[in-house]
C-alpha cells in the first residue's frame, strides 16, 4: 500500500503535490496518538471520506449529480446491523452491506439513467427519501425513530481506525488506477461528450449504471463501517441532509478530485464537531458552507491549496 502511494506520488504531479497528500494521510493517522474524541472523529472522517470519494467519482468523473447517496450509506449500515442481529458473522455482514447497496443502485439506476441532468438530481433525491421513509416507517425491522443499536459488538477503536484509513487509501488508489483504464477513460468521455462516444459505438447507459453500482457499493461499505463505529444507526442518517453533506465534502475538495474528497471529509468533520460544541444549528452550518463554497470557491478549496502550495495542475 505504501509503495502504491509512492507510485502515485510520482505519477500524480509535482513532488510538492505528493507532499500535500502525504500530509493528508498524516492528518488521518495523527489522532492515533491522541486517542479519545479526536480519534473518534478521525475514524468518522475516514469513513465518510470513503462515501465522499465515491460521490466524487460519480459526480466529477461520471457527471452524475446524485443527491441520494445517503440511501446507500444507510442501507449499508442497516444491513450490517440486521445481519449481526440475525447472528451472521461479521465478515459476511460486511460483504452483504455493499451488495445490498449495489442492488438498490441497480433497481433505481434502471430508471435514473433514462433521464439526465436536473432530472437525475430529482430522481435520486426522491429515491433517497423513499428509502428514508421506509427505514422510518418499518419500525418492526429497523426500530424506526429509536434506531438500531449494535450492542454486543466491540471493536478496538485503533483497529477500526486503521482498517478504515486503510480501506480509504486502497479505494483512492484503486479508483485512480481505474480512471486510467479504458473503462475509466470511457466514463470521462461520457461525461465530456456523451453524444460523441455513443456515435462511436459505446452503450453509455451500461457504463453509467455500472459506475452507479460501484459507487453505491463503496458507499454501502462506508455505511457499514459507520454502523460499527457508532454502534448505532438511526433513520435520520438517511435523510437528505446527509446526502447534501456528502456533496459539501466533495465540493470543498473540488468535484474532480478523489484526494480532494478526502480533504473535504476531514475538514468538514472536524469543523462540524467544533461548531456543534457551541451551537445546535447544524443545518445552518452546512447550508452556509454550501452556499459560500459554491459562490466563492467553486473549484473547491483543495485545488486552491494544491495550486498555492503544490504548484501543480490539481487533478485527481
Amino acid at each position, binding site marked *: 500500500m505504501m509503495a502504491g502511494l509512492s507510485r502515485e506520488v510520482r505519477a500524480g504531479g509535482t513532488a510538492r503535490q505528493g507532499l500535500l497528500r502525504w500530509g493528508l494521510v498524516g492528518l488521518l493517522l495523527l489522532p492515533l496518538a491522541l486517542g479519545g474524541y479526536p480519534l473518534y472523529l478521525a475514524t468518522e472522517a475516514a469513513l465518510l471520506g470513503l462515501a465522499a470519494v465515491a460521490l466524487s467519482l460519480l459526480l466529477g468523473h461520471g457527471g452524475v449529480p446524485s443527491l441520494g447517496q445517503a440511501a446507500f450509506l444507510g442501507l449499508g449500515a442497516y444491513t450490517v446491523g440486521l445481519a449481526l442481529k440475525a447472528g451472521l458473522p461479521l465478515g459476511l455482514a460486511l460483504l452483504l452491506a455493499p451488495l445490498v447497496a449495489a442492488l438498490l443502485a441497480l433497481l433505481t439506476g434502471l430508471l435514473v439513467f433514462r433521464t439526465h441532468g436536473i432530472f437525475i438530481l430529482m430522481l435520486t433525491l426522491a429515491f433517497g427519501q423513499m428509502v428514508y421513509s421506509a427505514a422510518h416507517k418499518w419500525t418492526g425491522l429497523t426500530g424506526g425513530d429509536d434506531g438500531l443499536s449494535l450492542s454486543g459488538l466491540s471493536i478496538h477503536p485503533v483497529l477500526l481506525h486503521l482498517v478504515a484509513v486503510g480501506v480509504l487509501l486502497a479505494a483512492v488508489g484503486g479508483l485512480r*488506477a*481505474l480512471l*486510467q*483504464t*479504458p*473503462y*475509466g*477513460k*470511457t466514463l*470521462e*468521455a461520457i461525461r*465530456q*461528450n456523451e*453524444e*460523441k*462516444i*455513443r*456515435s*462511436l*459505438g*459505446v*452503450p*453509455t447507459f451500461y*457504463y453509467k449504471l*455500472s459506475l452507479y453500482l460501484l459507487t453505491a457499493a463503496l458507499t454501502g461499505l462506508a455505511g457499514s463501517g459507520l454502523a460499527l463505529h457508532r454502534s448505532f444507526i438511526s433513520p435520520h442518517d438517511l435523510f437528505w441532509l446527509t446526502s447534501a453533506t456528502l456533496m459539501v465534502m466533495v465540493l470543498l475538495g473540488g468535484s474532480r478530485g478523489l484526494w480532494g474528497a478526502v480533504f473535504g471529509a476531514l475538514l468538514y468533520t472536524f469543523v462540524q464537531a467544533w461548531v456543534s460544541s457551541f451551537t445546535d444549528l447544524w443545518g445552518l452550518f452546512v447550508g452556509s458552507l454550501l452556499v459560500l463554497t459554491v459562490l466563492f470557491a467553486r473549484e473547491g478549496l483543495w485545488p486552491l491549496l494544491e495550486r498555492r502550495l503544490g504548484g501543480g495542475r490539481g487533478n485527481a
Partner: protein
Amino acid sequence: MLRVEQVSKAFGGLLALAGVSLEVTPGERRAVIGPNGAGKSTLFKVMAGELRPSQGRVFLQGREVSGMPQERVARLGLGRTFQRSNAFPELLVWENVALAQKAAQGQSATLGQPLRPEPGVQRVLEQVGLAERAHVVASQLSHGEKRQLEIAMALVQNPSVLLLDEPLAGLSGAERERIGELILGLDPQMTVLLVEHDLEYALRFAQRVTVLHYGQVIAEGRPEAIRQNPQVQEIYVGAGWAVETGAATTQGPEVLRSEGLCAGYGAMQVLSEVRLEVAQGEVVALLGRNGMGKTTLLSALMGLLPLQEGEVFFLGQGVGRLPPHRRAALGLALVPQGRRMFDGLNVEEELQMAAWGQRGRWTVERVLEVFPRLAERRRSPSRALSGGEQQMVAIARALLRNPRLVLMDEPTEGLSPLMVRQVAEIIRTLKAEGETVLLAEQNVQMALSVADRVYILEHGQVVWEGRPQEASQAVLHRYLGV
C-alpha cells in the same frame, strides 16, 4: 452497402425528409448537396440512428438498421463526423483516438491496464497529420486540427461506411486545403458519403451526386450532369428575378456601422474584421454560402452573441456591450432565422407583446392591414401557422417595435417559391415606407432584386461589396453559385 428506402422524417408539423430513397455501392464516393434546410443533415442522422425515421427503412450491408440506437449502428460499421467539431475536450489527442479504437474493438470496458497509445492510433494520427500534437489537450487544438481529430477518430474505427457532415465548414486557407486533400485521399475501398456546402469541392470529390430540396431527391447523377442540370442551378441561384437597377438613392445618415468585428462560438472564431455600413432608407443584402457567417453576424449585431473584438455603432452610439433588450430599445429589431415563434403564444399575443409600450407608425391595426392573413389567424397558436404565415408574424413583430433598422435573417428559408415572392414584395413595401433593412439571404436572385447594396461574406470575412448591378456573373459564380 448503404440503402435508404422511402425515408420520411417529420418534426411535429415540419416534414424534413419526404420519401427519400438512395443506394450507395461499396467503395462509392457520394456527395449529398442541396440548399439550406433541404434535409441533408437530417438524412445523415437517420442513417446513423441518431433519429428514427417516421417512415421508411435503412439498410447497412444488407441488414436493416432503421430505428436501431446509434451505438449499435456504429458498431455495425458506420462511422461519422459531425458538423461542429466534437471530441473530448479535456482528454489528450491520442486518448481521443484510442478511445474510438477501443470502442470499435468492443474493448471500452477493459479494466486490466491503463489506456495506452497503440500502433493503430499512431498510424491514424500520422495519416491525418496530427502525430506531433498527440499529447496536446484536445480543447487546445486549432479549428482545423479539431477537424483532423474528428476524422482520425472516425478512421481508426475502420468503418465500412463513413458519413462526413460538412467537414470543411468554417475552415479556410491551408487548413481547408489540408482537410480537403485528406478526404480525397481516403482509402478507395471505404464507402464515403459527403455533405458539403462547398459545391466545387463536392463535385470534385464525388463519383455520384444526390441533390436534395425540401426533403426530396430532385436529381441524382454524375457530377458533370448535375452541374449542368438547370433545376439544380435554379435552386441554388434562382431564376426569373430582375436585378434592382433603380437610381442610386441619395444616401441617408448612417444607421449602423461595424468596425473590425470579430465574433464566434466559444473558442471558435467565425467572423473576422467585418466592416459594414447601412444608411437610412437602404436595403442592404448580406450574401454568402451556408456556414460563411451571415447568421453569426446578425446575431452579433443584435447582441445575442458577444463580440470577441471590434465595435458596433448604432445611430452613432457604440452598442457592442449592450444586451439585446437595450439595443431593441434603441431601435434595432430582428426577424430571426427559423422565425422563432414562442411556444404557447397565439398570433395576437406575439404581436401585442412586441407592440407593448411602443408608439409610432406601426401599430397592430396597421400591421394587420399589411398582413391580412394574420387577422384571420389571430387566435391560432403561432407555432401552428404555416412557414409563410410565421414569417409574416416574425416580420410584423419586428415592425411593431417601430425600429430604425430591421435585421432579417434568411426570411425565405423553407418557403415555397410563391411565398418567396411575397416576402420580396413585403421588403419592397418596407423600402417604400422608408424602413431600413439589413437582409441576410441564401436566395441570391431574390436578394439582388430588392437590395440597394450587397456585401458578400466568405469564411467570416467581407470579400465583396457593391451595388447589385455591379455583381457580375463571375463574382456570383465565384462566391455563391454553381
